[in-house]
């Protein structure tokens, strides 16, 4: 994998910052995207994150003192056997699960101090989700499904429908705007899901086994689409257990027992 084509300062990103001493606690408004200093700041930064299930003897550490930074514009694949903590990591990155210990920053926003509403607002503004089983909402048509993240924002943009139309066009579904999910093929549904993940122009796109339910030809099309998005500067984190898929990404992060096994 080559270096990040859009990043002139590769040292600032993708590094295992095992002993990060960032004590500054910043909670700026969502729009605070000012870069600090030379390179781009990391989009997602984990500092000593642990996720513990159960307690006492039955304690399970899904993530164990995990520290990492995902840089702006990077394309990461996360791999690991089941139980390695990759799903938990993705949930923490997606702000739908909170770490038991440690800090997680999306851009400069410290998530630990946010309440449920703020975290939801953060998801609707800064994160895009792509799931294995597409997870479109059955009673909504394509256009409505794409705009779902916007309607939950505190101040939804006025041009939401125009954006959704452009994105549907972008993923090749401009002629299917009024179709319901069940009228679409798996690949088409996943394209709608991708358009939905892009509608809020997120800091981070999180894909969970995004090609797991697709045949190999369609899977390749979707992966091509990811490459295009990455080339446009999108930050993508993809969880997969298929080595082929992992190879497609720029960087590969392997997990084992809630810790980092290797970084490529």
């Amino acid at each position, binding site marked *: 994998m080559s270096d990040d084509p859009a990043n002139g300062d590769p040292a600032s990103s993708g590094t295992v910052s095992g002993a990060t001493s960032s004590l500054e606690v910043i909670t700026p408004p969502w729009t605070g995207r000012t870069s600090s200093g030379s390179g781009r700041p990391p989009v997602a930064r984990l500092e000593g994150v642990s996720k513990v299930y159960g307690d006492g003897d039955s304690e399970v550490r899904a993530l164990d003192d995990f520290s990492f930074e995902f840089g702006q514009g990077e394309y990461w694949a996360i791999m690991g056997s089941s139980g390695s903590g990759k799903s938990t990591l993705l*949930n923490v990155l*997606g702000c*739908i*699960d909170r770490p038991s210990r440690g800090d997680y920053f999306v851009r400069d926003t410290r998530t630990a101090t946010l309440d*449920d*509403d703020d975290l*939801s*607002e*953060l*998801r*609707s*503004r800064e*994160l895009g*989700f792509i*799931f294995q089983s597409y*997870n479109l*909402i*059955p*009673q*909504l048509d394509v256009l409505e499904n794409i705009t*779902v*993240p916007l*309607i*939950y*924002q505190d101040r939804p943009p006025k041009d939401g429908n125009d954006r959704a139309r452009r994105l549907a066009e972008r993923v090749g579904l401009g002629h299917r705007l009024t179709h319901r999910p069940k009228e679409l093929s798996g690949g088409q549904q996943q394209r709608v899901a991708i358009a*939905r993940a892009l509608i*809020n122009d997120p800091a981070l796109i999180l894909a969970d086994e995004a090609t797991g339910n697709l045949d190999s030809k369609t899977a390749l099309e979707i992966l091509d689409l990811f490459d295009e998005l990455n080339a446009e500067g999108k930050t993508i984190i993809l969880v997969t257990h298929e080595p082929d898929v992992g190879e497609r990404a720029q960087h590969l992060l392997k997990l084992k027992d809630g810790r980092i096994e290797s970084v490529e």
Partner: protein
Amino acid sequence: MLLQTVSRAVSLGVRSLLLHRLRSLLTTLGVLFGTSSVIAMLAIGEGASAEAYEQIRQLGSQNVILRSVKPPESVNSSGGGSGSQVVMYGLTRADHRRIEETYPALDALVPVRELSQEVRHRDRVASPRVLATAPNYLDVTGRFLLKGRFFDEKDEQAVANVCVLGSELERHLFPTQSALGREVRIGGNYFTVIGILAPRVRLSDDPAQAGEDTTDELLLPLTTGRKRFGDMTVRQRAGSREMEQVELHELILAVDDASSVPFVAGASRRLLEMYHPKNDYEVVVPLELLARAEETKRIFNIVLSSIAGISLLVGGIGIMNVMLATVTERTREIGIRRALGAKRRHIVLQFLVECVVLSVVGGAMGVGLGLLIPIAVEHWADMRTIVTPLAPILAFTISAGTGIVFGIYPAWRAATMDPVEALRHE
């Protein structure tokens, strides 16, 4: 902006409900029947009590009415006899005099005697209620004349052959002309018509209700009645002749003040007790009837609100049940929405809106059905019903409120789900 949010929420709710048409329909039925039964029962209750009030009002709320009643023993004795036996019972002119002497402060004391006579004009025959009474009859009964005049003391003293017709009777005997100044034959005597009585004022315009011969009456002076027809009444009944001698059928005591009605009623009872051991009278006190009617209405209202409350409770539980099932079924959708940024209040709103849509649709249909039921009842059961404007509004508001109250718990359950768990749900 808010309007847009609400309309989107409603449209989404409707679409989600349409995914399970039968289930949604069955759920609305609970609310529908609850709402319609509230309206129907209110209408029937209002109608019944209005009917009761009106009957009481016609008797006069400040009146005490003494009536002759045929004692049961005499019915038996005359029934087994040859048929020529004369039955004597009821109020007497002596009672009239005694009451007059006991209560000089009464507003009015009106004796009424009912005659059993046919009334004829040329070849037309009618059998109205023929009442012999005093000139102040109109004052105590609240009736009034359409035209002409009522008989006065002079007519009474002169034992004049004059009479007042009810408007119904006038129409029957004189279909093409006014009866005023003309003569009708009662028994063997001719009477000059001097006035026409107005129909009783009724709340209902329904002709089927108003047509109860309420104005099929003829009034004449008490003195004339006694002189021309005596105290004896002969009734032809089932082949046997029955003769009765009743001096007065009714004594109407008009009291000047409603607060002294109970006193006058009690004293009249004691007075009549002394002179009528046969118990051949009754004392009717409209004010007491009114109190009883009010008590009945109060009980009815309690029963009604219990039934309404229970039926809406059942409807509400139905809604809650279905919504809990829906929430479980749509756990994954909730997880997706939460992951995409929905806040808890968005999820609460979404499911609450569905509950409100269910209950409002049910409530609206219930109002429709509830307005039809009283019409059907009037038509088939011949009962009076009154739909007050408040009833549909009240019923609809309660049903919509039911949706909110019983929707809160399922909506809260949906909103407090853990997004990670919800997304994992199959």
